[in-house]
C-alpha cells in the first residue's frame, strides 16, 4: 500500500553545501517503511508537477528522515522548507531491502554508498544484525558518516584524499581487507559497475538500489525502467519498473 499524506516538516537542516536533512512525521508511511524504499515529495509550485523521489535515510517511530542533494529547482524548493511547512508526499514506494532474508542467509555484509546514494545505507545498517562494514564514497566533504550504529564499521573514501582512503569505495574495500558474504550498494553508475565486476569475480551475492528519472512514481507510467536479463513478469519484456519492481534489484538480474 502506498499512502498519500500531507506532512508537516519538523526540521530541515543543511548538512553540506548541497546536502539537506529533512524530517517529518507520518500517519502510516513510517509504520510500513523499509530501507531501500523511497518517498515521493510533491512541490508546492504547480508548474513543477512531478514528484521528486527521495530514498528513505532513517525511520524512527512515526518519523521519516530524508537526506537529499539539491540538483534542480524542485529540490532547491525543498531545501528552503522550514519547521511547520506542509507538503504532500506518497510512500513508501518500492520493494526495499529484505533485511530478514539478509540476516538469515549471510554472515557478513558490505554496504556501499556513493554520494547521494549514502542515505539508504543508514536505515539498512540499523536493521542488519550480521557483521556489517559500510563503505562511503565522497568527493570531499563528509555527511552521515557519524549516523551509523556503533556495531557497524565505517570506511571512508574521498576523491581528494582529505579523509580516509584516497580514491573510491573499491579502493577503500581493498585497503580494509574485508571479504563480505553479501553486498548492498547505492550510488553512481560507475561505482555500481565496479562493484558488479568485483562481485562477479568473487561470486558474492549483490543487491543494487537503482535510480532513474521518474514521472508518476507509483508504477503506472513506465518511465523509469531498467533492462533485465530475463523477461519481466509484469512487463512481459526485458524491462522492470525501478519505482515499484525495484528500486532494489539482484545485480545478476539487471543490465547496467
Amino acid at each position, binding site marked *: 500500500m502506498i499512502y498519500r499524506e500531507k506532512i508537516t516538516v519538523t526540521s530541515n537542516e543543511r548538512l553540506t553545501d548541497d546536502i539537506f536533512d529533512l524530517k517529518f512525521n507520518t500517519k502510516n508511511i513510517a509504520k510500513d517503511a523499509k530501507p531501500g524504499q523511497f518517498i515521493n515529495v*510533491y512541490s508546492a509550485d*504547480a508548474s513543477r*508537477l512531478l514528484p521528486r523521489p527521495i530514498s528513505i535515510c532513517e525511520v524512527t517511530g512515526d518519523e521519516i528522515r530524508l537526506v537529499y542533494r539539491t540538483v534542480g529547482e524542485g529540490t532547491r524548493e525543498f531545501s528552503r522548507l522550514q519547521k511547520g511547512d506542509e507538503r504532500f508526499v506518497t510512500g513508501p514506494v518500492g520493494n526495499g531491502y529484505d533485511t530478514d532474508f539478509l540476516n538469515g542467509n549471510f554472515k557478513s555484509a558490505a554496504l556501499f554508498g556513493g554520494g547521494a546514494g549514502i542515505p539508504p545505507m543508514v536505515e539498512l545498517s540499523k536493521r542488519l544484525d550480521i557483521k556489517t562494514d559500510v563503505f562511503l564514497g565522497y568527493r570531499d566533504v563528509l555527511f552521515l558518516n557519524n549516523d551509523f550504529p556503533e556495531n557497524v564499521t565505517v570506511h571512508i573514501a574521498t576523491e581528494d584524499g582529505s579523509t580516509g582512503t584516497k580514491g573510491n569505495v573499491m579502493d577503500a574495500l581493498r585497503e580494509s581487507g574485508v571479504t563480505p558474504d553479501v553486498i548492498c550498494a547505492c550510488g553512481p553508475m560507475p561505482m555500481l559497475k565496479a562493484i558488479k565486476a568485483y562481485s562477479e569475480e568473487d561470486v558474492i551475492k549483490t543487491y543494487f538500489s537503482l535510480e532513474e528519472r521518474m514521472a508518476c512514481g507509483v*508504477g*503506472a507510467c*513506465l518511465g523509469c525502467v531498467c533492462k533485465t536479463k530475463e523477461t519481466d513478469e509484469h512487463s512481459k519484456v526485458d524491462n522492470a519498473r525501478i519505482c515499484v519492481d525495484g528500486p532494489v534489484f539482484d545485480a545478476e538480474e539487471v543490465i547496467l
Partner: protein
Amino acid sequence: MSGVDLSVEIAGVKWKNPVTVASGTFGSGMEFADFADLNRLGAVTTKGVASKPWKGNDTIRVVETASGMLNAIGLQNPGIETFIERDIPFLNKYDTVKIVNVVGKTVEEYVDVVRALNGQPVDMLEINISCPNVKEGGIAFGQDPKAAAEVTKAVKEASEKPVIMKLSPNVTSIADMAKAVEEAGADAVSLINTLTGMKIDINRRAFVLANKTGGLSGPAIKPVALRMVYEAAHAVNIPVIGMGGIASASDAIEFIMAGATAVSVGTANFNNPEVTMEIVDGIRDYLEKNEIRSVKDIIGIL
C-alpha cells in the same frame, strides 16, 4: 439543489459521470487503486495494448518541463494476451466503463487486437493513431486523413465495440482529421494526444530524452487542447472526449463547454493521484452552485 445528473452517453454507452483518465497515465488502474476509487470514475481508459509485447524506448523516457512534461515511453506494453489474462479481470471488479486503448504498427495489428477484444467484457475501444514516440504506426496514421480513415474503417469492421479514434494535435487541421474518421465510421473522437517536443541538456550537450523528441503534456498544453476540442466538436456530429492539461474541475468544465461530452485526466494524476476524485466532486459542486440539473446542459454551449 441536490441530485444533479452527472451521467453522459457516448455511442450508446452510459457513463456515470464525464470523467475518465488519459491512456498511459493510469496503467489499467491497478497502480492508482490505493488513491482513487475506480468505481467513482466515469470510465477507465487503459494504457495502449498491442498484439504482441512491445519493449518501448530506451531511458531517459520522461522529463519535467515548465508546467508540463515530455514523455517518450514508446508504448511499452505486455501484449493483448497478458492484458486479457491480467488487466481485464482486474478492471472487472469495478463498476465503471472500461475503455481499452489499442496500438499497432500496421492496420493488421490494430485489427488483431480489436478482434481479440471481441467477446471480452470491455465497453469501448480507443484507437491510438497519435502516439508521437514510435516510428511506425501511431502517429503515421494520425497525420494523414486518408490513413486515419483506413484504420478507422478496418477497426470498425472488425470490432463489435464502439470505437473512439484518438487524434493527434500535430496536424494542420484537427477539424479535417475529425471529419475523416467520422466519415469512416468512428463512433467518437478523443483529443488531444501529446504535442511533439524536445529538451536539451546544455551541460551534457545532448538531448535529455533517449528518443530525442517526446510528447508534451500537462497544464502547458491546455489552451491548445481546448481550442482543438472546440474546433473538432464544431466539425463533427459524433461525441468528443476532451483532454490536454486538465488538472481541476474548472479545467474539465471548460472542455465540456467547448464541446466535449467527457474529459480525460492525464498528467495531473502524476501531480496528485487523487485528482480524478476531486474533479468528479468539483463538477458536481459547480452544477449544484449554478443550479444546473444535468452536465449535459453545458456540453458545447460555446
